């Protein structure tokens, strides 16, 4: 089952011209600079703006040459950038507005589950105007979920919130990801959000999709702008395999091998996401045993690209898992680095994302 879309539309001087397929599960982030057409893409999918092309969600056709389902006949949930709650209805009436409009047989997401998932128990009788921005956005997410959508569209749901409120909502979106088997299309221009939440990434620029793929691959593709700058990073899925009580360490299993993380706090068995910044990875030709660095992995150079005048970004494969190293051009020259070379990657620090 996949989501298959093709849209062409023109609005003033802006052209949207996209053609893509998405997996029918997980969070797919639509990432790109402001004005690149992320919102236009979501609005086209929702049928809020007319465009030519087609849209198939698994077996269902929402749009093709012959038909165009209006928005209210598309089984989608849409979370707008601003909460946009109905101010004439209380929170619980906001939540049931959509649910009461779908057939009883289609109600797979229960009211109680959603209220629990998004922590809304104490807000149900309140008027939206009395809620904080973060609370309002949680209600808006819950309201969209209550229609048991085939596809959830989220348009920068955290962009209108301050940092504190973002931290308040992110765990709920993580939970939604784990607990509901519902594909999510998540628009963002915030790289940290994407690194934390996305399984799949659509990179947009000027109304077109530049590239699409799994998040781990996309972040480390040297032909994409994501590997440029100080934020260049690799994302690795891992699970907690054990702890060292004496030294207060956490051990993490991943496809790349076993990582050691400084500190504790995550239970054994929990799934986590590791972020390794390119600038925290150094390279040695021989395995160093007399070093303070704990995370050292054998790796193969996959590709290299110059970064500015003085630096080089190296794409490495640890097993099958891609990571990035940012080194000086002089070091690359001294070590005689070239694609296919085997060496060792030393990671000075790794971060856990949720």
């Amino acid at each position, binding site marked *: 089952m996949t989501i298959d879309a093709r849209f062409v539309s023109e609005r003033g001087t802006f052209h949207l011209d996209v053609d893509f397929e998405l997996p029918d599960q997980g969070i797919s982030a639509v990432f790109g600079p402001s004005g690149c057409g992320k919102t236009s893409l979501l609005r086209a999918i*929702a049928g*809020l703006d007319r465009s030519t092309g087609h849209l198939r969600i698994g077996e269902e056709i929402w749009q093709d040459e012959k038909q165009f389902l*209006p*928005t*209210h*006949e598309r089984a*989608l*949930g*849409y979370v*707008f950038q*601003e909460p*946009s709650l*109905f*101010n*004439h209805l209380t929170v619980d009436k906001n939540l049931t*507005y*959509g649910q009461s*409009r*779908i057939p009883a047989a289609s109600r797979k997401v229960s009211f109680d589950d959603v209220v629990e998932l998004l922590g809304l128990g104490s807000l149900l009788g309140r008027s939206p*105007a009395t809620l904080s921005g973060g609370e309002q956005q949680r209600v808006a997410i819950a*309201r*969209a979920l209550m*229609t048991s959508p085939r596809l959830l569209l989220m348009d920068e749901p955290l962009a209108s919130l301050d940092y504190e409120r973002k931290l308040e909502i992110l765990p709920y979106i993580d939970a939604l990801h784990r607990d509901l088997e519902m594909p999510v299309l998540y628009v963002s221009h915030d790289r940290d959000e994407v690194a934390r939440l996305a399984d799949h990434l659509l990179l947009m620029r000027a109304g077109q999709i530049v590239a699409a793929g799994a998040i781990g691959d996309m972040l480390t593709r040297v032909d994409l702008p994501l590997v440029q700058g100080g934020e260049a990073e690799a994302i690795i899925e891992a699970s907690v395999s054990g702890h060292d009580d004496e030294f207060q360490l956490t051990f993490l299993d991943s496809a790349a091998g076993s990582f050691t993380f400084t500190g504790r706090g995550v239970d054994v068995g929990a799934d986590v996401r590791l972020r390794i910044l390119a600038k925290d990875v150094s390279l040695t030709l021989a395995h160093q045993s007399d070093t303070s660095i704990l995370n050292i992995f054998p790796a193969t150079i996959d590709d290299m690209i110059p970064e500015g005048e003085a630096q080089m970004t190296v794409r490495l494969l640890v097993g099958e898992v891609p990571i990035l190293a940012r080194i000086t051009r002089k070091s690359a020259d001294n070590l005689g680095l070239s694609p296919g070379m085997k060496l060792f990657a030393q990671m000075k620090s790794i971060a856990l994302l949720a």
Partner: protein
Amino acid sequence: MNDADIVALLVTLKLALVSTIVLLILGTPLAWWLARTQWRFKFILETLVALPLVLPPTVLGFYLLVALSPTGPVGTLTNAIGLGTLAFSFSGLVVGSVIYSMPFVVQPLQDAFRNIGARPLEVAATLRASPIDRFYSVVLPLAMPGFITAAVLGFAHTLGEFGVVLMIGGNIPGETQVVSIAIYDHVEMLEYSRAHWLAGGLLMLSFVMLALVYRQRGFRVSS
């Protein structure tokens, strides 16, 4: 107040009520369209709706009289389809009042619809509400203050109508004689006490209704 005055008052209230209902039925879709359309010539329609605000009622009444008379364009049509002549009838007064009070209904509704914006309707559409459902479940409740303002202003403004009625309604007791005309008659015949009763009643009624509108607006601002 004698019986003739009470009849005039009843005719006035009936005229205001019927006109307000017709105005809401016609004004709602018109205001909705004006609030949403991107049509570049919509200002022409807005100007037409607003004209009664600045036009002397006798001008409007004069053209209506010409149009509604048995040989006029509207009169010919109403005669042909068996409705008879509308001039000097209650129905004719309703037609005149609707045109005369149109801006007082359309403008508050148009403002209310514009203030709601497109977003709540888009949200409702993504929550499976059909267009008609969206109107009743979102637009109507959110625009309710606008509807109340429109209804009260339309009603109150029709109550105070004089020039148009004089031109197209004449002064037929029980049919087209409204309070404002009755007052004029009383003053002409120097029946000041009877004029006082009617004028005072109209003043009170208008004050109370406008006070209701402004009280509601005050609430809206403070909430």
